[in-house]
C-alpha cells in the first residue's frame, strides 16, 4: 500500500472516530437521564416505554437508516435542514441506533439497585448532585457495559451510514462504508487494511473501556 493509501486510511479513520464519538456523546447525554428515570420511577406507561426500548436494542440498522433517510430526504419532514449525505445525518442515524442500548442497559443497571436506594441516600441528607454522582458510581459497571455495547454497535454499523451518508469521498466515507466499497471494486488489499484498522479500533476502545470499568471495581 502506498503513502496515498495510508493517508486515505488515516483520514477515513479520523472521520469514523469523529462521527462515532459525536453520536456516542449525544446518545449518552440523551439516554442516561432517560435510563435512570425509567429505572427508578414508577409511572403509567412505563412498561410500554421499556418494551419500546428493548425492541429498539435489536432494531436492524438498515431500517433505522431508511427511517432517518425518509426524514432527511429533500421532500421529507426535515428535508429543509439539508443534512442528507452529511456527517450530521450519519450522527443522527447512529444516535438512533445507540440510544436504545444506552437507555436499556442503564435502566437495567439502575433497576438492579435496592428498591429504596434513593430513599436511603436521601435520608442521609446528601445534596442532589452528590446523590447523582453516587448513583453513577454505583451503576458504573452497567454504564460502561452500555458504552461498550453502543460504541461497538455504531462503529461496526454500515447499512444506516451508507444510506444517509452516501459514502462520499472526503466527506462521509467511514471505515465500514469504505470496506464495503473497496470489496465491491475488488480492491482487497485496501479493504483488508481498512478492516484491520476497524478491528484494531474496536479492540483498543473496548479494551480501554473495559479497563476503566474493571479498574473501578475495588
Amino acid at each position, binding site marked *: 500500500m502506498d503513502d496515498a493509501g495510508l493517508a486515505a486510511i488515516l483520514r477515513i479513520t479520523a472521520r469514523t472516530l469523529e462521527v462515532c464519538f459525536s453520536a456516542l456523546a449525544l446518545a449518552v447525554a440523551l439516554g442516561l437521564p432517560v435510563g435512570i428515570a425509567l429505572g427508578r420511577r414508577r409511572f403509567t406507561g412505563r412498561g410500554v416505554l421499556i418494551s419500546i426500548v428493548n425492541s429498539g436494542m435489536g432494531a436492524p440498522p438498515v431500517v433505522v437508516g431508511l427511517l432517518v433517510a425518509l426524514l432527511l430526504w429533500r421532500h421529507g419532514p426535515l428535508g429543509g435542514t439539508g443534512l442528507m449525505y452529511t456527517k450530521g445525518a450519519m450522527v443522527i442515524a447512529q444516535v438512533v441506533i445507540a440510544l436504545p442500548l444506552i437507555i436499556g442497559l442503564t435502566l437495567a443497571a439502575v433497576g438492579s439497585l*435496592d428498591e*429504596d*436506594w434513593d430513599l*436511603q*441516600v436521601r435520608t*442521609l*441528607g446528601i445534596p442532589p448532585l*452528590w446523590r447523582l454522582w453516587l448513583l453513577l458510581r454505583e451503576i458504573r459497571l452497567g454504564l460502561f457495559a452500555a458504552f461498550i455495547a453502543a460504541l461497538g454497535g455504531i462503529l461496526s454499523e454500515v447499512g444506516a451510514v451508507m444510506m444517509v451518508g452516501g459514502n462520499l469521498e472526503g466527506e462521509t466515507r467511514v471505515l465500514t462504508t469504505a470496506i464495503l466499497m473497496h470489496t465491491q471494486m475488488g480492491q482487497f488489499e485496501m479493504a483488508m487494511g481498512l478492516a484491520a484498522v476497524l478491528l484494531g479500533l474496536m479492540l483498543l476502545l473496548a479494551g480501554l473501556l473495559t479497563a476503566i470499568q474493571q479498574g473501578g471495581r475495588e
Partner: protein
Amino acid sequence: MSDVPALAARHLLVLRRSRRTVFELRVEEIDLRSGEALAVLGPNGAGKSTLLRTLAGLERPVHGQIEQKSVAGPVTMVFQRPIALAGSVAHNVQVALLGLHLSRREARKHVEEALRRFGIARLAEQRAATLSGGELRRLALARAFALHPAVLLLDEPFDDLDAAAQDSLSLDLRRAIEDTDVAVAVVTHDLRRALLLSDRIAVLVDGRVEQIDHRERVIAHPATPAVARLVGMSNLIPGEIAREASDDLPVVTIDRDHRIPVTGDVPPGARVWVGLRPEHLKVDVGRGQGTPIGQGTVRHLVSDGLVSMVTIDWAGFELRTHLIAGRGLARTLAPGDQVKLAVRPEDVHLLPRRKD
C-alpha cells in the same frame, strides 16, 4: 432525657394504596424526645414501618402535621435492609457527611468516632460490599450517628441477625443513644429488643396506636387484649367481676366452678378480660405462694432447653405457664397430669371487655 419533644406528630392520617387495598394509618399524637428511645412494637402489617417513613418525611400524610422541634441536627433513618455504597467502610460514612459541609479534618473525626462507637474501626478500609450482615448493620448505624442527628428512626435494626449479634448490637446501640442526645424511634416486632432499647413503648395494631407509655407500664398494664398478647401476657380469659360472699374480696367469675381472685376497687358485674403472664401462673405450689384457682390438665409440654412451656386446660381455656427446664416439675410433668393451679391476686391484670 428531656420532656421537650425533638419531633412531634399530631392527627396523622396516612393512606398506602396497593392494587386492591388501602391501608390506613391513624396516629393522634406521638412525640420523640431527646435522649430517649421509643420502641414501636406491633405485629406484621400493623403500620410500623409506614409510621417511621412518615416521621422521616418519606410518606406524605393525607392530613396531620409533623414538626421537628429540635434543630440540633437532622432527622435520619436506618432502613430494614441498609445499603452498602460502593467504596470502603470509611467512605460510606464520609459520604453521609457531604451535606454537612465539614472540613476534611472534622469529617475524618466524625467518621473515626462513628466507626469506633459501633466497633468497626478496624474495618475502615475494607470494601463495604464485603461486610457480613451484622457488620453492615453496624455500618448503617455508624453512618447515621456520624450525622449527629436530632432524630434517628430505626426500622428493624436487628432483622436477620443471630441472637449473639443482636445482643451485642443492642448494647452498643443503647450506649450510643445514652451518650448522645438523639431522639430515637425503633421499630421492632421483638419484645425483648424493645424492652432492652427503649424508655417508652408505642404499640401499633392495625394502623392504630393502641397504647403509648413507659415500658414498665405497658408491660404491667396493657391497655387492650391485643397489646397484652404482644407484650407476652398470653393468658387472656373472659369473665365478670363478682364479690366473694365470705370475705367480700373481688373475684372474676369465669363460670360456675372457676373464679380468679383480683385486687383493687372493681365494680361488680363489670365484664373483663383476665390477663395473666405465663410466669405468674403457679403450678403445684405450696400455701403462701398464691391463691388456689382449681385443677387443670397438662395438655402439652415443649422446651427450648432453658424454659419449658406448659399448656394446661383449665375451665375450657388453654393456659400457658413457664417452668425452668430440666428442674423440679418440668422433669416429671407429662401430658394428662392433673395439676393444682394458683395465682397471686396482685399479678392478675384486668382489661375492660366490650359487649359483643
